[in-house]
């Protein structure tokens, strides 16, 4: 038995490598140089992420499969990687203050965040169900831990446990789906699955169908689409706020990255089937998300439901598919990252040790006390609600235009009606901020410069790209081809 070791295209995984190595190094630094670098770990990881961002940026236009077609670098994955890195970088900026305040300022925190990022990048670049599976697990395991990171808090524990149990449960389903696809097609490679199905399309293979459905469960769980969404409000509420922010952006985007890639690359022939399923899922997802969000009193929980609703909108992009659909998804994910992280950043800023400003009512009178923060929060809320000229509007606009272009007018209309419902609860936040008398004292803010940077950056992104989205749209369009 001769063993031919294939060439390792390290360049293609260089971002992954750099992040992983950085993660390990941060851990080591924390262990050995804790005294010196204790407070600098955030900066270091931030710089690493930025640097990796540049590395990723050089990968634009590469389009290669590497590692025996296990991994792919194309503009699609590059775009997503940039979103992940953006989200990671911002979350790192936001975390600094928080973890110090909560007394969990460990190097492990950054390590895990970086590992989660690695997992997400694997998901976006996975060309094989195995890689994707490992990526998902990598991300999930890191997130399970991160959710329970403030481990002296019961809420955090509970979030962690719920996330973990349900995640593992769903992993079983997803794996069974992968097994079925493997059993039916003899391969786990996305392209080969597609080829197989195309070649044997004469027969209706129930195993593929069931496998695909099981994958929908798995991915649907990650993106929190109804009825697999129930973990997310609890977990969002219980997790440390920066982690919640992280979970609602990067990992969610990764879920979409995988979802779209698997279904468009591996299962395009089944589109008539899954597009109907997803149609229904999208509709109930946005409706349930928006409806339940109305009656929430906890802002993190409210944002969780809002995030469910946004998943519903983004699902529309997957249903639409095609270049337009993919581009709109890419854009939407980026937009969502900006505005949602921004909103969470404000929540973090206003949080006190031990009691995070979790209730919407706690924002009462923010407009009197901290006008700039209030304006920022309103901008994010309006953007989430999809009101021009903010990036959220362009994102929604993009997705629904894609839907209409492909003839999903009913879907678009339902989506639009939903966004009206959503206006109601986003507005409530602004109402509380500006129109209610303060019910409590705001503690003096301990603003670390990092989080200020994060807020400014997200605001700029939300506003600037709302008004001049041209560049990003162009980039998204250019990235909308699955290699």
């Amino acid at each position, binding site marked *: 038995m001769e063993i031919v070791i294939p060439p390792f295209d390290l360049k293609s995984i260089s971002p992954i490598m750099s992040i992983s190595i950085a993660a390990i190094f941060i851990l080591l630094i924390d262990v050995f140089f804790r005294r010196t670098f204790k407070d600098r770990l955030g900066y270091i990881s931030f710089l690493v992420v930025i640097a990796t961002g540049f590395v990723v940026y050089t990968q634009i236009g590469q389009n290669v499969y590497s590692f025996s077609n296990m991994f792919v670098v194309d503009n699609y994955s590059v775009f997503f990687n940039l979103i992940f890195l953006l989200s990671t970088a911002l979350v790192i900026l936001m975390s600094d203050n928080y973890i110090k305040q909560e007394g969990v300022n460990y190097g492990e925190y950054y390590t895990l965040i970086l590992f989660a990022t690695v997992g997400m990048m694997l998901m976006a670049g996975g060309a094989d169900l195995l890689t994707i599976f490992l990526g998902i697990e990598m991300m999930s395991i890191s997130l399970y831990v991160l959710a329970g990171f403030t481990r002296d808090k019961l809420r955090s524990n509970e979030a962690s446990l719920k996330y973990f*149990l349900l995640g593992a*449960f*769903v992993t079983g*389903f997803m794996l069974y789906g992968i097994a079925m696809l493997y059993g039916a097609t003899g391969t786990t490679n996305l392209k080969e699955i597609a080829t197989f199905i195309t070649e044997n399309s004469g027969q209706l293979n129930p195993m593929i169908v*069931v496998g695909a*459905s099981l994958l929908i469960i798995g991915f649907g769980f990650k993106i929190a689409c109804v009825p697999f969404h*129930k973990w997310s409000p609890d977990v969002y509420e219980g997790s440390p706020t920066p982690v919640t922010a992280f979970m609602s952006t990067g990992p969610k985007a990764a879920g979409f990255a995988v979802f779209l890639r698997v279904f468009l690359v591996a299962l395009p022939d089944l589109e008539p089937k899954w597009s109907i*399923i997803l149609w229904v899922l999208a509709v109930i997802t946005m409706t349930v998300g928006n409806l*339940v969000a109305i009656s929430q009193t906890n802002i993190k929980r409210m944002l969780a439901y809002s995030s469910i609703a946004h998943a519903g909108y983004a699902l529309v992009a997957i249903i639409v598919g095609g270049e337009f659909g993919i581009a709109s998804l890419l854009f939407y994910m980026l937009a969502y990252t900006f505005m949602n992280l921004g909103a969470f950043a404000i929540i973090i800023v206003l949080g006190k040790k031990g009691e995070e400003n979790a209730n919407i009512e706690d924002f009462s009178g923010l407009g009197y006390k901290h006008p700039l923060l209030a304006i920022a929060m309103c901008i994010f809320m309006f953007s989430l609600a999809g009101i021009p000229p903010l990036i959220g509007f362009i994102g929604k606009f993009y997705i629904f235009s894609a839907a209409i272009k492909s003839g999903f007018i009913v879907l678009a209309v339902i989506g639009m009606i939903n966004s009206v419902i959503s206006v109601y609860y986003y507005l409530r936040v602004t109402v509380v901020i500006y129109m209610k008398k303060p019910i409590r004292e705001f503690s003096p803010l301990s603003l670390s410069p990092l989080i200020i940077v994060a807020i400014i950056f997200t605001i700029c992104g939300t506003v600037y790209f709302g008004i001049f989205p041209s560049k990003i749209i162009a980039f998204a369009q250019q990235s909308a081809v699955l290699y």
Partner: protein
Amino acid sequence: MLNQFGITFLDLIGFVILFPLAGTIINGFLGKRLSKSIVGYVGCAAIGLSFIVALFVLLDLLKLSPEHRVFEKEYFTWIGSGAFRAIAGLQVDPLSVVMILVVTGVGFLIHVYSIGYMHEDKSFYRYFTYLNLFTFSMLILVLANNFLLMFIGWEGVGLCSYLLIGFWFEKKSASAAGMKAFIVNRVGDFGFILAILLIFVTFGTIDFTEVFHAAPEHLQIGSIVAATITLLLFVGAVGKSAQIPLYTWLPDAMEGPTPVSALIHAATMVTAGVYMVVRCNVLYTLSPFTMTVVAVIGGATALFAASIGLVQNDIKRVLAYSTVSQIGYMFLACGLGGFITGVFHLVTHAFFKALLFLGSGSVIHGLGGEQDMRKMGALKKYMPITYITFFIGTLAIAGIPPFAGFFSKDEILLEAYTKGSLFFWGLGAIAALLTAFYMFRLLFMTFHGKSKMTKRVEEHVHESPNSILFPLIVLAVLSVLGGFLGFPTLSVINEFLAPVIGAGHHGLAHGGESHHVSSNLMFSMMGISTGIAIVGIVVAYVMYISRPELPGVIAKRFKGIYNIILNKYFVDEIYDATFVKPTLRASNILWKVVDVKIIDGFVNAVGRLTVLKSEVLRLFQTGLVRNYAFSIMLGGIIIIICSILFL
């Protein structure tokens, strides 16, 4: 026709309206700071100058040959939209000249009168502002060269009437009366606007000349369009001229200062309807049906209002009902084709009714604001000049020769008899009888008999100042002489106005031809009508001078009828019950039920339902992991089943 300045006075017609406008502006903006006398001078001067210009205009017009006595001066396009255009322009023809002379002439006198009458009032300047504004509007009304511009004046006078009725706005009844006047007038305007619309749609223009020129060619006699237009116009006239069924505002309008009642609610504004009908005589002659309607309503109003006037005790209200009645006469004349007769009566009525009102004003002024006739009496000796002038006015209105009212009223009755039928003549005749009766009743109750004044009042009674007496005297003179304008054989006014009727040149006109009536008939009619008037006077004399207890006895005997008449046939109450109350009730229902409960309720229900759905849906989020797992599995299985079985 040119004077040394190279322009005719016709070209200066604009000044007729500019002077009052200037007066308005000066008094309106500066009046507060000016002294009362200056305000008064400005107000009077504005009208006086207008009157002078109007006189010169008349002279210039007379220089033209009768068929060319139409002059239009167009200033600018007021509204121009597509084919529609309304030009701000003035039209001078015999009719409008007569009207402006009456308006400015009588108006001037009343302005003068007002200086004395209103002298004590704090808002003196406001009063003159309104009065000048009124004159301005009235002049626009009569000088307008198209319907829409006329409508400006039409509404403008309505506005001023509103403002002046409610002049003492602190009096609730006054402000309510003003509002009532405006709103009832609006009902009429509703018709007027529609008429204008229909005229434009029919003729493509709203210019008087063009419309009247085109009308006979466009429309058949008796055509529905013509009938509709004229009826709608007549609705407007009914509102403005206080005819049945829209007369109710006029008696209430007596809440205003008395000179106002004289000017607006007797001499000028209320006759605008008559003016308008005469102005549109071409159209009216095209619709015999409308003519009949006009005549019937006019006649009915004349009789009806006169009957109410019989029993009223408020001096001004009696005059108000008499005004309504007299305008009914004018409409009766117009409806029967006697447009010129109508105008003639308009003019004479302006004289004697203004006189009567001013006289009553003098009385009220003298009595310190008392208006109830039952508390007057024997004023003859206290206010001799007022008494004499008032007596002249009363004779004039009662139709005693040779006073003004006699000629015009007689002509109307003649008209009714010749053109119409015995029926119309009967209406007119009975009304004339009643008129003579109630006017003399008024005279007797006020100036004759025993004094029923309270002590306090009696001490203060005095003859009015000169500024009040002067107009009375002038008007009295006019009331005496005015009738000769239309003296049957040398009727100046007939001749002068003839070109206006029937647009001058087509054969349909048959206005002002009382000449054709045999003089025998004419003189017998005169006799009869004089007789009627005398009967009325005699009855009044019997009842109020010789046997003062009689009215009470009669009132008791015919208690039912008396009450009905005393309460003005309960028309106000009927309107209130049939229009006002139901509208308010309906509005309340619309608001409180339809708007708040149904429409808004629906909107809110949608919102509440959404929240409710939210509240229900959130209950599925139990917080129990196993439930979540269950829903995941259930969802997954449903998806699988669906994907296999149904898709």
